[in-house]
């Protein structure tokens, strides 16, 4: 019989289940993700830093853990809450079980809970902090929870960003287009795709200054996705300001929010965020609808978009801003994840578009 674990929420809601992965105590903002596959990509997505993630799909770990579906150098979620985790996975690429993977990475999981009820709770009351433990008593856990810094006050970007500049997969020949990625928690698939398109790809730390980046003489700059509240990231905003106009800039997710800030727009926190692989986005220019992968808790406030910046895409479900363009500057900005991983691959064309932009501005 596996050890008992509890997940306690800010409002004292308690979910009781069994531990899996590491048997420790962990805490974070509790969020849900509706993607039905791709848990390994989820676990390694830096945007989940500081969060306890619960997939809405109940059967997790079915195809095990493989060598390919990694999106960053480690497991990034603070905790993983599932209905059921699979101990006998089945896939020809599978190397280990989800349990082993979390254990090796020292990340705690809780299984056997009514995740749907947890999701509904969050949907009604909004995301909130939670603590996941197999060590503390309920009372201890509640006390601990009160003493924790709220998610919104922590700069997780510094935790997940690279410490030094590196080039991604330098071996293969290129098309001579130089892309520099400002790493606020980049997902490897962004780098893979850019490389596949033939670009030379450099990744720089989140706190790099504009002139440092320009020294690498990039033809285009990508402001990467990442965790947390963009309002905390003035240093990235300033860097962005220093780059916009000089080089084509592509903002993705957090990068998109930062780009918004750079133009003086403001962001706000969504009640329970957008996390999953089925969010419909309407392109206001073409009228077309795209199914997108999303993972964000904050959004750009449409009413504050100004200084030549325009809303180019919106979310069909709640009308929030999904894309920005500029009347005359070369910026391409989307709130969702064209790199997918996990999720629909329909939107990788945006990278082609950006690389074209970079080329033409050469």
């Amino acid at each position, binding site marked *: 019989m596996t050890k008992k674990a509890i997940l306690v929420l800010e409002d004292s809601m308690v979910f009781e289940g069994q531990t899996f992965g590491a048997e420790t105590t962990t805490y974070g903002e509790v969020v849900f993700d509706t993607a039905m596959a791709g848990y390994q990509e989820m676990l390694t997505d830096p945007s989940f830093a500081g969060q306890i993630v619960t997939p809405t799909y109940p059967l997790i770990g079915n195809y095990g853990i493989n060598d390919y579906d990694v999106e960053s150098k480690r497991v990034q979620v603070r905790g993983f809450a599932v209905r059921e985790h699979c101990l006998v996975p089945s896939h020809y690429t599978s190397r280990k079980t989800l349990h082993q993977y979390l254990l090796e990475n020292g990340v705690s999981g809780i299984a056997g809970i009514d995740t749907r009820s947890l999701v509904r709770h969050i*949907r009604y009351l909004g995301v909130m902090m939670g603590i996941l433990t197999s060590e503390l008593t309920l009372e201890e856990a509640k006390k601990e929870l009160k003493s924790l810094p709220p998610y919104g006050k922590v700069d997780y970007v510094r935790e997940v960003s690279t410490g030094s500049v590196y080039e991604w997969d330098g071996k293969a020949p290129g098309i001579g287009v130089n892309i520099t990625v400002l790493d606020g928690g980049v997902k490897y698939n962004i780098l893979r795709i850019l490389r596949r398109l033939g670009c030379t790809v450099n990744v720089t730390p989140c706190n790099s200054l504009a002139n440092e980046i320009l020294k690498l003489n990039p033809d285009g700059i990508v402001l990467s996705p990442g965790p947390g509240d963009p309002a905390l990231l003035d240093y990235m905003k300033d860097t962005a300001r220093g780059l916009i106009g000089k080089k084509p800039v592509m903002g993705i997710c957090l990068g998109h929010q930062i780009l918004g800030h750079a133009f003086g727009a403001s962001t706000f926190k969504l009640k329970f965020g957008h996390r999953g692989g089925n969010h419909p986005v309407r392109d206001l220019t073409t009228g077309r609808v795209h199914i997108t992968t999303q993972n964000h808790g904050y959004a750009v406030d449409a009413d504050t978009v100004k200084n030549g910046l325009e809303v180019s895409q919106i979310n069909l479900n709640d009308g929030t801003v999904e894309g920005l363009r500029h009347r005359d500057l070369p910026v391409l900005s989307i709130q969702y994840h064209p790199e997918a991983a996990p*999720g629909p691959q329909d939107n990788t064309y945006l990278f082609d578009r950006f690389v074209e932009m970079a080329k033409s501005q050469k």
Partner: protein
Amino acid sequence: MTGPKKVLVIGSGPIVIGQAAEFDYAGTQACRALREEGVTSVLVNSNPATIMTDEGIADVVYIEPLTCEVIARIIERERPDGLLPTLGGQTGLNLAVELSDSGILNKYDVRLLGTPLQTIKNAEERSLFKKLLTDIGEPVPPSDTVHSIEEARHLARQIGLPLIVRPSFTLGGSGGGICHTIEELERTVSSGLSASMSHEVLVEKCLLGWKEIEYEVIRDADDNCITICNMENIDPMGVHTGDSIVVVPTQTLTDKDYQMLRTASIRIIRALGIEGGCNIQYGLNPHPLVAERWAPDWKNPPHSQYYVIEVNPRVSRSSALASKATGYPIARVAAKIAIGKRLWEISNKVTGKTTAAFEPAVDYCVLKIPRWPFDKFAFGDRTIGSQMKATGEVMAIDRTFESALQKAVRSLEIGKKSLLWEDAGWANVKSLDEFPLHPHDMRLWAVMAALRRGNTPEELSVRTGIDPWFTCKFLNIVQMERRLLKEPLSRDMLWEAKRLGFSDSVIGTLADRLPEQVRELRKTWRIIPVYKMVDTCAAEFDAATPYFYSSYEEENEARAIPEKKALVIGSGPIRIGQGIEFDYCSVHSAWALREANVRSIMANSNPETVSTDFDTSDRLYFEPLDDESIRDLLENEACELPGVPNTTPPSIVQFGGQTAINLTESIVNSGHSIIGSSFENIDITEDRRRFEDFAARLGIPQPPGAAVTSMDEALKVARSLGYPVLVRPSYVLGGRAMEIVHNETELTRYISLALEMDSRHPVLIDKYIEGIETELDAVCDGENVLIPGIMEHIERAGVHSGDAISVYPALHLTAYEVETMVDYTLKLGQALQTRGLMNVQFVIMRTRYGTGHSQVYVLEVNPRASRTVPFISKVTGVPMVKLATKVMLDISLKDQGYHGGLWKRQKLVGIKAPVFSMSKLTGVDTYLGPEMKSTGEVMGVDHTFEAALVKALMAAGLMLQPGLPVLLSIADRDKTDAIPLATRFDAMGCPLYATEGTAAVIESVGVPVRLITKKLNEGSPNVIDIINDGSVQGVVNTVTGGRTALKDGFHIRRAAAEKRIPCFTSIDTARAAVDVLANSGQMYNIKPVGEYLRTTGKT
């Protein structure tokens, strides 16, 4: 481009294997959607047992044969500007192609909506399809199209065996098959060529053991594409998707696999240019364990990761499943797209907030298991392959795979078989090789049995090709079985067992308790199911849909409805003897409740149905229809109502066929209530012997008979009754039920077999009365009895009422006979205090010389809606189910504006003809007897008997053609009838072939006939040859009862079935068919069904 104003929708016709209720569901949803958009809908379907053919669904309804000519006339009359071909299954699609090819669509400029003609051809014509995919770089298995056996042989040399033959434009894999030898290949190719509309078949490399994955895709005119869900067939490639156990969503695919196929799906639907929905099937590389044995070469080039198997450019069985599995109404959306709407312009009725432009997220696991007819046809070939054999399916939803699986098994209603069931033969099986692990209807049980004997999931995966993930899940179930067997039953273990879907009765069996005791334990330990919502979005949005499934979890989302309400129990999977007509009744009952301001709650397990559509009832419980689930959900609905203390809602059991009736006892005994006829009175009619006494007391005669338990008794009784007699076990054992027995040898054989199988239950012997069979349905309120109409069978008694051609109104009955039937029915209705519907079947025996009164016997009374209710409701205009449901709510017939007695005879003739799926069921005898064999029905309606019959036979595919040769092989008993028959055929210019005896008789009256031997090993051509080579276009083959005699004609009848030519096994049907020949030239009307009713018909 402006949207159409008036749209013609083609239905799918009768229920046959491969085309079941799902198209009534799709068509009904589509017609509603058109109405929402203010588009006039004109519907044509030959199947009366459908909701879509009710007035009020479509704007104009035609119940006419689905032929090019007929539809051309409808188009000429209605002048629609659009045609929706994608809702009537393969039938609708093929008709659309015919209509267009024959220039009719152009002539009346009718636009094909949704799917352009070229797209249909590209998707259906296997060769075009292959080219199109190759052009867009999608991988297809090595294959080639062949038009002859020679070409096939040649190809076999190139690609190598095994190969699979796949005809174009067919359904359920008809005429196709997997071939391991050249002989198999030749046989299959020839049958495939004759099945294929375009006379070509695809011969393709066989990807046995590969995963079979399906995607449901939707595209709109702006080229916006979404996928609704994907599905994983647990049975790998080689077993038809319709015969596979299927799980939604896929379980063993990484996101990369998932997206690879999703991206391919979108590329394909774009290349095809479909505006609407389609279903795409893939073969995906198997797990190494499986590959090792089944596809050793899958990894090395030129093999691709996956192959595209086929696209169905229309709504399908799979799209119905996908709709019910996700809550996303595919047919509704497809219809709106077809008339020009964009995905984002269509609202998502389930959430009420979002639009149709999104991809559903599910937070549960869905299982579908096919329902095969082998309980009826125990002697048929039970192996399954690339040709579909299932008549229906069940679906179950839960939060664990194990539970969804076990619930689905509970929903199947195959005897009382749980997953624990094992074939007696398996008990002493030594090695795994002896287990029947090849694909067949009971393979799942065989796999479980093998696991119980300690074989590993891996071993079983290697043998079956089923992915290890699934066999490991099966093992979880077996391990819980073991724990239940040896560990003491603790709360934790019971909780776990319930979360794995173990029913109380299975737990009872294993833990040595009575099911009721397990239930009690659950109560004491507060282990009761909660109900979760199917909301399309995994709870991301607040949804308004009332669609629920049970689960052993924490939070209950289905609070009891605090209003007056009633539960309608559905009829479960479609099977022979219990088809779509009961779903029709359940739906109407739910609507009637709504009309009477009573909340309707629906319980059903069949995803193909209208009754399980999200807006049919006020609340839907998608659950197995067994006493545990029904009682659980009734208790979940318990609540205080003004005046009434804590009560559960009453149940309506009359509309769900035998399934619902069989639940009555446990519902009542567990303290819940039913409305309508009382359990006591239902029981009287259900228990044949009880009913005998009851009828006797009312002075209502039944065929004389007795129950016997020994051979001597049997012989004595039979002698006193006089042969022929009709025998049946009082307790039906798989396959061998009713038989007509003509002499002592036959009787001895039957009785000894029956006693051998089960000596506890007696065998019932009745005098076989070779008379006219009639049937009626009645609505009673306990006081008045309304009989909308009487039906007369064309076949004499002895052919099951469900297989007989029945005619409304009865045309050949004397006033006395009618009065007697009405009188008996009134007596029965009152004496039984029937509240609601009842169905009575009679056989009438006339005195030999027409002197004196004929004798009317009651064969049986069914205390419920019967198969004929939709038919009778439509031809008489009496809304029987609505009346019955309101009677149950204590609104008398009078208060509903109806009086008792026989309803006025309509100025029309309606004829219901059975439709069979025999070509699919190899090894099954098509001979008609007292056991039902048909899967569906059609209706022909007109102002004259002749015209109606022409239509009925046309729609049923039983038309003969003047001038085309027929084969007669007729039993001695019928030889006298053979003579006039032969003369008529001759008069119609049909050359005659006949077997030995029959030929002699025909010659004796000087009618030219060609003798053809039925002795297959003595010279050729013999009977089989002339059927196979197409020399004859029809067969009449009657035999004098008894299995021995049946052997004779068996191969003749099978040959006819395979060749898909009419084969009459009752002299009466044959006579009718020839009469029709004479009239086939004559004009029949084509008009909306309502007009036949309203106009005072000209005759």
